[in-house]
């Protein structure tokens, strides 16, 4: 009897250590469970309408995170310029589809196309591809720290174009009245239907990314990340591979931007500031480099944080934004200290 008690108490005393060890070794599984449970309980407690909003925002961020992970995690190019493509996608759809009422124009002259969304979407994605190709021809000569700086430059230039190219972007005023997607005369007005559409696009992005990273093309990308010079010796032109993945990734980011524009029905340059790109890099690193699942997890955790902080009691609404950034920054520092490859990552930066 006494022996049994001793055994139990010993097991109990070892429990915290065992848990810690399990947490360390299976962080990916634990994090998945915690984040998914948190998301589920949060959505259940807040009702359907809120859940749909949360999932839609998640899907858009997830597209961005997965697309950036192709460049950052798999190919090892730390780009902080993705917000530029996100913005180009959003603005293209906005400019081509918007049909604002006369009083909103305030006497300014702006070209109105009033295209349907599904006609503007391919243009937006293709335009991102073209811009990425032109920029990428120069960028793919760079690597490491210099890559960060040139992509930084791209983000700044893109933002300034959004602010100053007024007859297309309407400058700081932004573009309003972006219609919801319509197909064959049927408008997707319902939030749930819109969520399904966004998730379908997310599925396409994840599917393409999965195909890329499991193919021989993906293997070369990983090799470029490991040793760009050595790969040339085996007959690969690493700049071509860097350019190709950059263009693909930019088109995915453009798709996310297009969905954002039609979802919020309004775009302005403030959605595409450099800070958004930094947040995106943080999500990808937190979730895990070179892990598509990690990027999805990171995006979900980020959206939970974004929305969740709003409901923390005692927190004055004007401080919500700062608290979000403090939490995200702290998480990033902690992960860099204790788990540099991120939660689900395969590779350290």
């Amino acid at each position, binding site marked *: 009897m006494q022996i049994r008690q001793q055994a139990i108490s010993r097991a109990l005393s070892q429990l915290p250590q065992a848990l810690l060890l399990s947490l360390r070794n299976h962080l990916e599984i634990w994090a998945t469970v915690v984040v998914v449970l948190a998301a589920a309980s949060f959505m259940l407690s807040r009702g359907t309408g809120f859940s749909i909003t949360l999932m839609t925002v998640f899907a858009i961020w997830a597209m961005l995170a997965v697309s950036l992970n192709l460049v950052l995690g798999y190919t090892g190019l730390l780009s902080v310029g993705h917000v530029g493509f996100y913005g180009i996608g959003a603005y293209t759809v906005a400019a081509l589809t918007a049909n604002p009422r006369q009083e909103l124009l305030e006497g300014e002259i702006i070209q109105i196309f009033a295209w349907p969304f599904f006609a503007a979407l391919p243009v937006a994605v293709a335009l991102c591809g073209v811009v990425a190709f032109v920029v990428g021809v120069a960028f793919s000569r760079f690597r490491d720290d210099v890559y960060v700086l040139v992509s930084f430059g791209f983000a700044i230039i893109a933002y300034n174009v959004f602010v100053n190219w007024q007859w297309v972007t309407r400058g700081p005023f932004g573009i309003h009245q972006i219609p919801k997607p319509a197909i064959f005369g049927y408008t997707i007005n319902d939030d749930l239907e819109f969520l399904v559409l966004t998730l379908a696009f997310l599925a396409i992005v994840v599917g393409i990314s999965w195909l890329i990273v499991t193919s*021989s093309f993906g*293997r*070369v990308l*990983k*090799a470029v*990340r*490991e*040793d760009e010079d*050595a*790969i*040339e*010796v*085996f*007959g*690969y*032109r690493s700049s071509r591979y860097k350019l190709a993945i950059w263009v693909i990734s930019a088109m995915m980011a453009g798709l996310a931007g297009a969905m954002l524009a039609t979802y919020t029905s309004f775009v302005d340059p403030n959605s595409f500031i450099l800070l958004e790109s930094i947040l995106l890099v943080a999500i990808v690193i937190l979730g895990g480099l*070179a892990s598509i699942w990690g990027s999805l997890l990171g995006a979900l955790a980020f959206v939970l944080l974004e929305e969740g902080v709003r409901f923390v009691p005692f927190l004055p609404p004007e401080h919500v934004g700062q608290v979000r950034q403090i939490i995200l920054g702290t998480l990033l520092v902690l992960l860099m200290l204790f788990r540099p490859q991120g939660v689900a990552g*395969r*590779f350290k930066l």
Partner: protein
Amino acid sequence: MGALTRCSTIRRSLRHIWATEDGEKNMTARDQHGGAQQQVSTALPLLELSDVSVHYGAVVALDHVSVQIYPGEVVSLMGPNGAGKSTVLKAVMGMAPVSTGTVRWHNDILASPTHEIVKRGISLVPQGRRVFTHLNVEENLELGGMHVRDAAERSRRLDAVMEFFPILRQKRRDPASAMSGGQQQMLALGRGLMSSPEILLLDEPTLGLAPIIVSEVFQRVTEISKTFGTTIVLVEHNIRGALSIVDRGYILDKARVAFEGTPKEIEDSDILTQVFLGREDNEE
């Protein structure tokens, strides 16, 4: 040229693992060369650097260097640090700025960008192994032969390389980072063989390995030459080890070729003493 007699004997006894049409042609070409061993001076070098100079800014890395490699040979480039051994290989691979002279491959001038050169049958095993540590062994090998479009041919080569290096088959699913230095060197050699090269350029394959592994690497290099019929250029700092396996050697010193000959000729001369300032006994 006793060395050439020896290597032609080896050549006749080769069994080509890659039984491709190309390989058959190579075999014939090599046998013809072997038959013409008495007139070595008229035989065509496989790879020839004539009068090659390389400058890095004001630094002279190669100063009018001429090197000839004949089909089927195992040749080593030796010399002290900074003599320009690795630069010779870099000049061949298009990775060094050649200011004078030409590199010829099968008597054609070789001036392709680095990524084209492997397709012409030249394969480099770079210094420091440079395996892709986050990729597994099989992925590393496949990267070495990815320019071969035919998937069946690729998998046949993969099989042949794994046959030759059993450790690579055993660890095919393990990341390269989980291997020891010696195993990584075997992986680097195997990756270089995946393109089924006519010539294999080995840049310091024994650097940083334990003595027992060093002799294993040298043994493997000899076996590669015998089994696959690959011509081998070996850049080595380990003079004694290299001389024991090569047909011919070049001694480089201060960016120039100081001596060229068979291992016996090199050992009989006092060139090693000259070049290494009488420290030839401590080379290992």
